[in-house]
């Protein structure tokens, strides 16, 4: 690889705690191979906050063990062959491959049980297996992998690992909010189709797109970006996908099922596309990195190019409308979840909390004032009545 990105340089940045520089690299180009990721990811994932008392437990179970078992049995396949290749395999080679997959599934099962048996209040959800699978493809050590997944579950995915998914549906609604500022026409079309909740994106946000993408290199690139970004970055990326695919949406009838199925499957579709429907011109025009790299290395593999473009536009959107700028709306949208303003903008969080306190104070004053006022009226009324009675 001709780039200046190498393991030594990344190691040096990690050793010297150059968090900003590492985050910039992860967002702009990604870390490009598993060796470098192994150095960068643990540091970056841990940078989102401490997790106390992680206990390494062998052969442990949790209240989610059954669900975990059901899901791990349906995981890991993409790390051995593409969906199409699985389909075309002979019975014999399939059986052979399955026994290898099983080894990886068992490991994933142990990792997930370790994560969700830590005595914390983290709740496992279907899809977390896809996340952990991605981390495991890079971090091969079992307990380190579990520890990092625990970090993710407690920090960047803290909204998803609560007892209910309600906070996630609130988080998802931000997609339409951001769309409204960027593409009213598109939002109108979605609303006309009664798409009032962007549920098509729930898998993207809950798994950082790992559930829908089979191309393991592309998933890793996605994760390079996400471990460097605000917890809401996946929601921004989801918004960008809708914006990028706007013509496809607008070309469809304003019908719920039509548009839902188009958006729901778009990442998988793009991933599986043999022919490059996405013209290279579009990619070149929208992606600085691709334009530069192309000179040195030829055109990018198609889907990786698509993901790169999505991530560059996500960075731009995050800069143009940072999560902090939605605080007036998040304050209304997410009054119960101030956690949305984590890490990157503690100042804003403090302000939001103060604002809420002030509002509550004001309400209290009004209520108390109202009661006092009423009391005065009653007293005066009773007194005047008494006086009136006294005259008769």
């Amino acid at each position, binding site marked *: 690889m001709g780039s200046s990105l190498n393991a030594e340089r990344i190691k040096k940045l990690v050793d010297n705690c150059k968090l900003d520089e590492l985050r910039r690299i992860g967002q702009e180009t990604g870390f490009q191979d598993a060796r470098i990721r192994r150095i960068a990811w643990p540091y970056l994932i841990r940078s989102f906050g401490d997790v106390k008392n992680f206990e390494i437990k062998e052969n442990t179970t949790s209240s989610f063990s059954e669900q975990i078992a059901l899901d791990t049995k349906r995981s890991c396949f993409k790390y051995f062959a593409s969906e199409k290749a699985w389909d075309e395999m002979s019975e014999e080679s399939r059986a052979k491959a399955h026994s290898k997959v099983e080894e990886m599934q068992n490991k994933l099962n142990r990792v997930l049980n370790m994560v969700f048996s830590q005595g914390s209040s983290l709740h496992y959800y*279907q*899809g977390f297996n896809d996340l952990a699978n991605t981390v495991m493809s890079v971090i091969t050590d079992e307990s380190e992998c579990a520890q990092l997944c625990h970090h993710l579950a407690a920090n960047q995915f803290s909204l998803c690992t609560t007892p209910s998914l309600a906070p996630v549906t609130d988080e998802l609604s931000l997609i339409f909010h951001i769309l409204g500022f960027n593409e009213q026409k598109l939002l109108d079309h979605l609303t006309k189709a009664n798409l009032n909740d962007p549920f098509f994106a729930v898998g993207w946000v809950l798994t950082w797109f790992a559930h829908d993408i089979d191309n393991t290199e592309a998933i890793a690139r996605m994760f390079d970006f996400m471990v460097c970004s605000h917890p809401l970055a996946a929601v921004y990326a989801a918004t960008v996908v809708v914006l990028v695919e706007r013509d496809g949406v607008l070309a469809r009838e304003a019908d*719920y099922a039509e548009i839902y199925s188009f958006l729901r499957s778009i990442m998988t579709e793009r991933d599986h596309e043999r022919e490059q429907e996405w013209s290279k011109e579009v990619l070149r025009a929208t992606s600085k990195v691709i334009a530069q790299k192309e000179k040195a290395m030829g055109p990018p593999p198609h889907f990786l190019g698509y993901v790169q473009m999505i991530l560059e536009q996500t960075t731009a959107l995050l800069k143009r409308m940072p999560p902090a700028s939605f605080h007036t709306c998040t304050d209304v949208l997410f009054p119960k979840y101030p956690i949305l303003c984590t890490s990157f903008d503690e100042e804003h969080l403090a302000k939001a909390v103060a604002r809420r306190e002030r509002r509550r104070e004001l309400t209290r004053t009004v209520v108390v004032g109202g009661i006092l006022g009423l009391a005065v009226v009653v007293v005066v009324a009773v007194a005047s009545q008494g006086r009136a009675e006294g005259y008769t």
Partner: protein
Amino acid sequence: MAESEEYYDYLFKLVLIGDSGVGKSNLLSRFTRNEFLYESKSTIGVEFATRNLKMEGKTVKAQIWDTAGQERYRAITSAYYRGAVGALLVFDITKRATYDNVDRWLKELREHADPDIAIMLVGNKTDQPHLRGVSTAEAQQKAREAKLSYFETSALSGDNVEASFTELVKEIYSIASRAQIDVAGSSWVPTQFRPDHAESVPLGGPAKPASNGGCC
């Protein structure tokens, strides 16, 4: 196919529900694409597929919404019960617990779906008779008590899959065509995902043919 997939006389929205891992997604892929995936993933949120069926010379488009089984997804999946005219409630005949949960799923439907939704109970995985944990008679009994029809299927071998979906569609069709006579003349729109209109159209009425009729 000679006929365009776009054209249909009726649109029926169905939901596939039941515990995680009972085989909902594979029942759907068997019915709509005649496929069974050994390497299938778990479903996150809601997915859907369609297939057109012929009923007395009319084309019925079955739009089937496949839901995640894990309880915490109910907040999302239950939104899709509204406007559905039929439900396949699936359990795994080799896993007793998934059968025991049938009552909870029925309660779920009663709370979120239209009251006259047609429900079919489906015991899946008959390809594993040696592991059977729920007898046919027992499940039939439960179905009778709850006034549901009952089918046993194998998404893997394909046994009875076609029959079960078709039977449910037929059941709805007969109600819908009877209802259509009652309201002849009124302009019905297909039951789409239209929560606010759902109650006015309890059953999918005749849909307008697609404007561009494909080849002919």
